[in-house]
């Protein structure tokens, strides 16, 4: 029974006028995982999420949640809850009323609602903020209210639309871990939409990369990063050098950190000579643009392990690049 | 949801659209003082030919358009600097200043026109002032002239001009003016090349909001104008209430509507556009 996916999407498409937002998507989401839909703006990830929530109706295809076909089921009867990008906290209600809203709709007794609201607010460390209005909260507190409100109905599935986009950078990193811990504690399935690859990679158990309405690859962060199946994925996730191989019939996706710099010809599987064109010092690492003899450009990154590196590589320096045979991923498209 | 659409739709179709069909039908009828209501239905163009051949009606059409146009222009010339000055006031003062523009609109229209009757009469305060200061020896009577009608329209409709102008001027990004100044434009050049073009939607909306009702105005020419002030709204009123010529009054209504269809459509398009921008 538990092998059955919690969400099963089959052949789902959606158009808005002339624009195809989602184009023939098939996807299974497993029970209890944190799944991320990753892609640039307009790739269809939000539309897909909104179709799961019931705010949009697919033109074709089926969406099953826990084995039940969701066709014709309005949002308020679906066993899913959503955390909105803007949080969508009701400005005319205080925090406790916001969190209680979903339970009120079920007509539960007031005592039980109060108890569960108290628990939910405890869980997000806002127990003493129940009487505040959303306008009186900080960005991080609002995010936690939105989370408590979406979780209080104990949904089978929690949808998160860009859950961290509205937070500032420092807060975002702490909140990532908090969300992951909460998901593991509760044993719920989370589906989140994000445009931030770092966010998706660090939080998700599995992720789907979307482009132009299609899912181009599904896998663990490691699979997607180290074994991209297309030039798009290789290019979209992290940085990749795409080198033509086999006379231009295929490509090699080579990550900059898999290449090493040498002063003289190294004893690696592959070696190329070039000249440093640009250096970008980023603190934790340095990124070099190296022009090869054949005119192509290769990006190389080195971790700045030592505070004062023994051999800095200045612009204009003649260098050798070396990498192993299995350092890159061969791509057919 | 169907009920939500139907409620206003049916109401407006019944009490707004349907009546126009009746007006149109009756405008082609003839007057019969012995009937109740005083109408003989028919298909006669008599009323319309009368409206476009009789000197009295022609004068009334032209008078309405002329008076409405000049008073709209004067209202614009007065309202624009006001709206502009409000946008330049301290932000904390602006709501108060704006409220002060709106307040007269919330009082009675009739009372505001009435206020000028006392001011403009031959022994009124304005004349006393002119005489006492020696500015004008014998000012004559302003009440009962076209001057008074103009004054009344400008006064009564000034809030309608200031509000849309303020709305469009307020949106103006002041850094645009700084950019213009930085690029060598004098304040006056900057006004004509940046501020004025940007506020054009407000100018159009304000002018239409004054011009359209001013053309059909009745109360102002009736109370402030004289017997020689001919405006079409007053003609319609008199045909209806004094002469009981319902078909002729209906024909006047139809012509007035046709005359204003252009400006009204323009106003509606402008409204729709500004809502889209939001």
């Amino acid at each position, binding site marked *: 029974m538990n092998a059955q996916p919690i969400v099963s999407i089959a052949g789902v498409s959606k158009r808005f006028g002339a624009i195809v937002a989602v184009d023939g998507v098939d996807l299974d989401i497993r029970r209890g995982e944190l799944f991320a839909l990753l892609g640039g703006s307009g790739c269809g990830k939000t539309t897909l999420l909104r179709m799961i929530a019931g705010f949009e109706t697919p033109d074709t295809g089926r969406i099953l949640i826990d084995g039940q076909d969701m066709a014709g089921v309005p949002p308020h009867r679906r066993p899913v809850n959503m955390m909105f990008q803007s949080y969508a906290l009701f400005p005319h209600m205080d925090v406790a009323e916001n969190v209680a809203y979903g339970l009120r709709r079920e007509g539960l007794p007031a005592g039980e609602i109060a108890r569960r609201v108290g628990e939910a607010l405890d869980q997000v460390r806002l127990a003493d903020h129940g009487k505040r209005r959303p306008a009186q909260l900080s960005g991080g507190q609002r995010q936690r209210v939105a989370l408590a409100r979406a979780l209080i109905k104990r949904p089978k599935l929690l949808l998160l639309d860009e859950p961290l986009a509205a937070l500032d950078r420092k807060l975002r990193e702490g909140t990532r871990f908090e969300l992951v811990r909460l998901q593991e504690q509760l044993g719920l399935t989370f589906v989140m939409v994000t445009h931030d690859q770092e966010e998706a990679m660090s939080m998700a158990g599995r992720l789907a990369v979307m482009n132009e309405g299609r899912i181009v690859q599904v896998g663990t962060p490691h699979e997607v990063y180290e074994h991209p199946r297309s030039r798009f994925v290789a290019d979209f996730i992290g940085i990749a050098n795409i080198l033509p191989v086999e006379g231009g019939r295929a490509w090699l996706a080579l990550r900059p950190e898999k290449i090493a710099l040498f002063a003289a010809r190294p004893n690696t599987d592959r070696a190329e000579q070039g000249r440093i064109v640009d250096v970008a010092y980023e603190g934790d690492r340095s990124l070099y643009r190296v022009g090869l003899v054949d005119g192509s450009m290769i990006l190389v990154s080195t971790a700045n392990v030592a505070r004062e590196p023994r051999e800095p590589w200045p612009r204009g320096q003649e260098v050798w690049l070396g990498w192993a045979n299995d350092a890159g991923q061969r791509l057919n498209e | 949801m169907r009920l939500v659409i139907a409620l206003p739709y049916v109401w407006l179709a019944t009490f*707004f659209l349907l009546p126009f069909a009746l007006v149109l039908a009756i405008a082609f009828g003839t007057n019969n003082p012995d009937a109740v209501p005083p109408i003989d239905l028919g298909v006669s163009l008599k009323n319309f030919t009368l409206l476009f051949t009789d000197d009295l009606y022609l004068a009334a059409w032209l008078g309405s358009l002329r008076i409405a146009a000049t008073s709209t222009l004067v209202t614009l010339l007065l309202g624009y600097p006001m709206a502009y*000055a409000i946008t330049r006031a301290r932000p904390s003062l602006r709501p108060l200043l704006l409220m002060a523009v709106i307040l007269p609109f919330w009082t009675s229209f009739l*009372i*505001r026109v009435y206020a000028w009757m006392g001011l403009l009469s031959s022994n009124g305060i304005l004349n006393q002032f002119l005489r006492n200061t020696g500015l004008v020896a014998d000012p004559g009577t302003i009440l009962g002239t076209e001057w008074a009608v103009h004054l009344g329209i400008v006064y009564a409709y000034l809030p309608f001009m200031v509000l849309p102008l303020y709305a469009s001027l307020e949106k103006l990004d002041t850094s645009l003016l700084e950019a213009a100044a930085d690029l060598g434009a004098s304040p006056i050049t900057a006004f004509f090349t940046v501020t004025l073009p940007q506020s054009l939607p407000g100018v159009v909306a304000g002018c239409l909001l004054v011009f359209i*009702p001013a053309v059909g105005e009745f109360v102002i020419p009736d109370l402030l104008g004289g017997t020689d002030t001919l405006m079409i709204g007053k003609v319609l009123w008199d045909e209806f209430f004094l002469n009981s010529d319902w078909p002729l009054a209906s024909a006047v209504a139809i012509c007035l509507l046709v005359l204003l269809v252009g400006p009204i459509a323009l106003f509606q398009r402008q409204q729709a556009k500004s*809502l889209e921008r939001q």
Partner: protein
Amino acid sequence: MVGRARFALTVLAFGYAFLYLPIALVILYSFNESRLVTVWAGFSTKWWSALFANEAMLRAAWLSLRIALVSATVAAVIGLAAGYVLARVPRFFGRTLFGSLVIAPMVMPEVVMGISMLLLFVVSDQLVSWPNRGFLTIAIAHITFSIAFVAVVVQARLADFDRSLEEAAMDLGATPWTTFRTITLPLIAPAVGSGWLLAFTLSLDDLILTQFVAGAQSETLPMRVYSSVRLGVDPQINALATIIVAVAACALIFSGWLTRRKA
């Protein structure tokens, strides 16, 4: 900079003097001993006493108030529906006509609306002996042209309404009707309130439309004022004007407070 500030100050001083001097004089002369509005003959409240003893005026005021209350309330309900449809229902049969019908009464010359509505009531009276001209016909006329003002205010409020609030409510199990009742309506209530106030004021103030559809028996306050004013200046009207200005100022401050509270 100083020159420009002085220019702004001059413009505002002149503009507000133009707007308020006539009103101030009307108020001042309501306390004049003399009947003439041109001569100040000392302080007196006799015109105020006369106003409050003026039976016809009081009856007209009472009728106007009742009509305004009824028509503003009905117009608020229909205008709310119309504004909601304009903001939220992008496509249905006759959408363009619907939009024009809602907005048109705002800019329609009142004499045209007046004559057309009277003709409707006359024809309907001939056909089905209903309605009698009076309270009902005046209220219908006022509702019809007030709908536009409520609808425009509601539509503008809904245009910058965050749709995800409604989606969040539905996501948490609220039916569309519950969503409207618990989320949408409370949040647009200030707009509906100021629309109601606008409709109330317009109804209280309307002369032309009312004159057409009122019939012989009913006389509203503006009709009473108009027939009195036609005969010339009357200090009782000045006293009435003072009351109206005071009430309008209070109403405006109240509606300003309502809109500020929503933020």
